């Protein structure tokens, strides 16, 4: 049934449909509405789970780790500083190859403190060994959340579902929530292969020395690469159940003959769709990188085939280096057949509005020489002369 729901509420209900037995969370803007909605579902007996209101994100991650190892499906959500605080445990969960699902309500990272949306937080933990799936809209957030549990459990890897804070979490959109039957069919009860059980005691979290550490890292790396197959399978299977097609790795929208492409992650993709329609002009291919981990090298090469120029629009930067996503895109396209020139811009940092006009400015900007990476929406009037005021 199609209904208008706030993103957070939709995500909360999608989580409940997945029947995690343990949910642990600590409040942080803009994730709060998700966990508040889950708490309310639990309070209203619409959702049976152990809802653990922990004292920190660090403990939230630790609780879901413990719960998953004890054999339960487990879920948490956070953002920004919370992701930073739990980052030690995030690495640990992934290294232990434990399947949990986390919603990251993407937000800027302090300092300066800023509660609004960009993607610096999830990008900061991109090397933790988690799968990262980015959502362009709230329907995708619902569908990806459900798929994430299956992917996590089949791969024995944790999945971070990245949803832009406020832009998605706090906005109402008409969307379809699947039935419990559909979700149950898609996501059967799960038993972790290394469940802690007194009848067959295992030791998890062992000390691995130099003689064996490379092999653990290699296996982990391979597992994340191999997850691509499960991401694709989950998208396929879910679309046959839900009737909604969702691109597993990269969503490509635009005429085949387009020479210019714009790649982005998250809700800006919708803005660009609108802008392209609004401005018209030369054909532009829009790409939404849904799977950032594993990084879909082959899918990217296929999706960018025929492009002469590819603009990578970042929602986070790595100060002193390229944009984070652009660097990976450049690396992935290196050695491809006639790869496009890659242009790199940031936009919408710390929640700055990304208006339709950004689309036009991007297309205009690639006609002139640009730094390897710069914010397309930089307001130079705020800068001192020394800092590059006009």
């Amino acid at each position, binding site marked *: 049934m199609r209904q208008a729901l706030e993103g957070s509420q939709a995500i909360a209900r999608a989580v409940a449909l997945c029947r995690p037995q343990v949910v642990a969370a600590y409040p942080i803007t803009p994730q709060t509405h998700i966990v508040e909605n889950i708490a309310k579902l639990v309070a209203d007996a619409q959702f049976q789970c152990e809802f653990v209101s922990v004292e920190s994100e660090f403990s939230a991650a630790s609780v879901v780790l413990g719960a998953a190892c004890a054999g339960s499906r487990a879920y948490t959500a956070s953002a920004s500083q919370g992701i930073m605080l739990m980052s030690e445990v995030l690495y640990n969960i992934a290294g*232990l190859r434990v399947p949990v699902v986390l919603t990251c309500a993407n937000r800027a990272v302090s300092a300066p403190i800023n509660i609004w949306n960009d993607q610096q937080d999830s990008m900061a933990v991109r090397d933790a060994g988690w799968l990262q799936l980015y959502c362009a809209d709230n329907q995708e957030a619902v569908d990806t959340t459900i798929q994430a549990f299956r992917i996590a459990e089949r791969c024995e890897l944790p999945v971070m579902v990245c949803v832009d804070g406020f832009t998605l979490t706090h906005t109402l959109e008409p969307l379809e929530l699947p039935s419990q039957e559909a979700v149950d069919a898609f996501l059967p009860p799960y038993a972790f292969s*290394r469940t802690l059980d007194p009848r067959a*005691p295992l030791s998890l979290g062992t000390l691995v020395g130099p003689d064996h550490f490379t*092999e653990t890292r290699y*296996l982990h790396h391979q*597992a994340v690469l191999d997850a691509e197959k499960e991401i694709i399978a989950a998208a396929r299977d879910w679309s046959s159940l839900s009737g909604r097609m969702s691109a597993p790795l990269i969503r490509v929208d635009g005429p085949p003959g387009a020479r210019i492409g714009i790649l982005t992650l998250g809700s800006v993709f919708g803005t660009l769709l609108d802008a392209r329609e609004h401005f018209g002009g030369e054909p532009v291919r829009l790409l939404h990188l849904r799977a950032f981990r594993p990084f879909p090298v082959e899918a990217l090469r296929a999706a960018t085939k025929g492009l002469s120029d590819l603009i990578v629009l970042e929602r986070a930067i790595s100060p002193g280096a390229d944009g984070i996503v652009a660097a990976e895109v450049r690396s992935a396209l290196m050695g491809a057949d006639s790869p496009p020139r890659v242009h790199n811009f940031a936009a919408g940092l710390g929640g700055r509005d990304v208006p339709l006009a950004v689309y036009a400015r991007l297309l205009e900007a690639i006609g002139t020489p640009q730094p390897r990476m710069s914010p397309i929406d930089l307001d130079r009037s705020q800068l001192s002369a020394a800092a590059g005021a006009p």
Partner: protein
Amino acid sequence: MPIMTPGAVAYPGTSLTFKTGGWRTARPVHRWVPAPCHAGCPAGEDPCGYVGLVAEGDIKGAWERLVAINPLPAVTGRVCDHPCEGSCHRGAYDSPIAIHNVERWLGDEAARAAWAYPLPLLPAEAKTVAVVGAGPAGLSCAYHLRRLGIRAMVIDRLPLAGGTLRTALPSYRLPREVLDREVERLMATVNFLPHTSLGRDVTLEELTREYAAVFLAPGRQQPRAWDVDGRVPRDLHAALPLLEAWVAFGKVPEIHSAVIVGGGNSAIDMARVLARTGAKVHLVTHDVRPAPGVPRDLAMKAAPRDIRQAEEEGVTVHVEHAIHHLILRGEKVVGVELVRVKKLARDEGHYEIVPFEGTETVLHVDQVIPAVGQTVAPEGMESLLAARGFFAVDGTGRVPGHDALFAGGDARAGAWGTVSGAVGDGRRAALAIEAHLSGKAQEPARDAEPITFSGLNLNYFEHAARAEEIVLPPDRRLALEEIAAGLSGPEVALEAVRCLSCGTCMACDNCWTVCPDQAVLKMHAPAGMRYLTDYDYCKGCGLCAHECPVGFIAMVDETS
């Protein structure tokens, strides 16, 4: 190479492949160390062993362990001055184990239950050894010979076996029936020829000719000569004959007041007997009271308990005094002049009794009774006695120059002069005789040093009061009735539990409990063998040894 698992999971039991024993520089070993009570027992008993069995509830086993050393526990449990208790480490903790009462109870219990002495069958070709004297030394020797598969023929001048136990020990200390019962049971295991005096009825030559070996234990029957400055009262009685008369007939000549001279058991018994007849009794000795730390040579030979009881019964004890002059009226004593003395060490092993002028006092008494010891009655053995009238023997009891001639008991030079000392002499001689007869070289006795008090770990024990027996109050002590009631079975059991088990594993599980490496394993085996160290994993930390309450575990260096 092991195959890497997802998340580097590991499986139970896998650490066992890592043998940490290689880290060790010292290994714990179990080693029995003699308890001080063992070292302190003249009979050679190991009280720690049999008290431990009592604590475990194995009463018969305890008695058997006890009589493997001392066949007369009901007797020694009563009359021995129990130096074992003086050396008991529990004494330094709270108060010593009442070993004598455990021993006494075991002896009584064995008689009550009529347990047979555990003895091997006597082989047809068993040799026979003559034992002269049926006192404690002779009986012990005969019994131990029998245990070793050798027949014993005991001869004694008296009609009944028992020696001094029978002739000179008052029944308030050793009831007749107790003595009869235990000696009777023992005598059933040996042959006895009563009414037979050496020198009168049989000669030493005959004995040495007819028997495979001879053990001489005639005791000391001849009172030492005594005088003060060459003067002796005309009506002088020596203590031993008086005592023997009292033991045999319950009578002594009427004496109103007396000074007993001497600090040994005879002196004390004499004093107590006279006190029972209503006499005013003084006891004068140049020794000091026995107490922990007082050298044996300086202390009264009588047991502290007996001295105390004598005093309770009205005897006045004058320690470190001597008779300076006899005050005579004619040849009869009317008093003595005492003087304070001190036994001062002179050259090696010798003491000089030094009187102190100006400390003289006078006691008005009508008798002076010397109890200054006896010597061996030499009849039939004159050629063997050393200069001072005793047998000089080597450590095994052998008379030098005579392969098959052994001696012991009170007749031996340097004897303890106690029943348990005599029992020990008899056992040692029996072992030497057996070695001699079987042609085996006897291992020289090498008793390890007993465990020190600091060798125990007392943190694992609790204070507990010593079981005290009921003793008749002085005003109710009759002539014959036994004074000390001993302990009941339950009291003995509780007392045994107090034993610190010095140097002997008591299977307390402590080593098993404190090992951080589970390298101590527990087995179904008797204490002492119950724990096994798995040296594959033992890192040699030493906790088991340090925490062993009884000092049964030692760390042995492995680096060299």
